[in-house]
């Protein structure tokens, strides 16, 4: 690869990382409360409200049932409204976040639902309110599983960010399409794939390590 190419490669790498981290962060900050709300409002939950539960469930399912590539295009007006443009890395963060939030919300919901009800009961019995239950029981007890789910979300986002390259989002996916696919530069293609594999493995490894450190159940 030429020096120009290498520079482009490095820039694309950081674009992918930034897109993944930024939309991952947003999906965590929005998806975790959404997951909590889904668990809390469910039947027998700490703030049971079946109407809200069904409404939230429907919204989450709605977003999750739209294929990402369609969401990408459908959200262009929204993206333009928020970022000012529909092209480039920052623009791609909007659809990525909107797709990843309900995805992570479901993951968080499953993790939180698995917390032993006896623990909630114990904290209620000692006079804790709902907020205490969220802070002292639900989140800490589900934490290893929440982290594992977030790792999966991040990895999914790396893949999705490559797809966002199709609308000129930048990043490694964009690079692979423009040079590797359209201009037949096999080296670029191979390098992109290799870097993506390393990136995914690194995230998975770090996630697994963190889960192990946080888990005191065994």
């Amino acid at each position: 690869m030429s020096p120009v190419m290498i520079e482009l490669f490095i820039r694309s790498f950081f674009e992918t990382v930034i897109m993944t981290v930024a939309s991952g962060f947003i999906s965590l900050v929005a998806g975790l409360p959404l997951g909590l709300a889904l668990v809390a409002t469910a039947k027998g939950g700490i703030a049971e409200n079946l109407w809200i539960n069904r409404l939230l469930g429907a919204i989450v399912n709605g977003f999750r049932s739209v294929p990402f590539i369609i969401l990408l295009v459908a959200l262009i007006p929204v993206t333009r409204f928020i970022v000012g443009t529909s092209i480039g890395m920052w623009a791609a963060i909007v659809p990525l976040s909107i797709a990843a939030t309900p995805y992570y919300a479901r993951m968080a919901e499953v993790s939180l639902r698995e917390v032993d009800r006896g623990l909630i009961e114990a904290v209620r019995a000692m006079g804790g309110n709902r907020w205490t239950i969220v802070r002292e029981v639900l989140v800490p007890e589900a934490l290893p599983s929440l982290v594992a789910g977030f790792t999966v979300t991040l990895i999914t986002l790396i893949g999705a960010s490559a797809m966002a390259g199709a609308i000129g989002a930048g990043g490694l996916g964009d690079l692979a399409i423009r040079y590797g696919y359209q201009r037949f530069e096999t080296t670029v293609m191979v390098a992109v794939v290799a870097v993506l594999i390393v990136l995914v493995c690194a995230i998975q490894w770090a996630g697994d390590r963190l889960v192990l450190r946080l888990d005191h159940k065994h």
Partner: protein
Amino acid sequence: MTSPFPQAGGAEQGENRREAVVRLSGVHRHFGDTPAIDGVSLTVHKGEILGLIGRSGAGKSTLIRCLNGLERPDRGSIKIEGREITGLSEEQLQPLRRRIGMIFQHFNLLSAKTVEENVALPLKIEGWSTEKRLARAAELLDLVGLSGKARSYPSALSGGQKQRVGIARALAAGPALLLSDEATSALDPETTAAILELLKDINAKLGLTILLITHEMEVIRSIADRVAVIDAGRIVEEGPVWSVFANPRTAITQSLLSGIRPHLPQHVAARLVSEPVGEVVLGVDLSGPDAGVLLAGLSGALAGGFRLIHGGVEHIQQQSVARFFLGIPPASDGPARAVAYLERHGAKVEVLGHVPGHD
């Protein structure tokens, strides 16, 4: 037969004068059509250990959960330290729950918190500073004999140790009442004994009132002052433990007791017939000071002698409670005289049948 012992009446009067920590009256709780609690009235007195026993599904957990508002009754009155709690909102119940500690069958310790953090959690909820609550947690861990485990996680503890942490946590906020829902049911017999000993100790040392639910009479015998038997959501029998053991009035109580009271041995029971041939087998129940000397007296009164088939005297709350199975030779009026003698001394006597060939 009503209890022949003046102590019994005395104790009951004494209890009526004592302050009530819990007073339930006419409590109902239905799930759909099935009544889980069907009109329960029950009082727990200050400083006592009241054991509530019943089969699985009898409504024990539902009842105990009504006391701290985790479950809401459909009807009836629940007074904790004189205060009616049935109308209270969740927010109003929260401070009240801090007056009531609770321990559970499966311990319910938070796996993500260390032992000391678990014990200190009720105090965190009350808004204590970290330093003060960890100091208090250390005191409590000392009380339950787990000082060395403060920084461990619950997963590193044995079942008995976990329940000790549960007890320390339940005591952290200095409750007026401790509720125990099958707290020893997941433990082996030795550990169970140690945990019950600890609870008894705490009851004596701190004067803490304890309401303990269980399906095992053994637990009642080793720790409770009074026992209430619950069946299908109703209290069917209630009284001092020794008196219920000596004289169980309902079939359910008898069946709950059957595991720990002497039985007529199987091989004798198999040979029992109703025709008056051979040795007469008597079941004898007696409690009180006479229980220990009854047989000596009987052998003096019975020229033909008798055979002790099975049974003995045990001591519950310093009361002697005897249960014997006797074989009386059929000769002349032996059996009739034995029954008369035993009944004259206050025993409850049941003629179980005859064993042919034993004469």
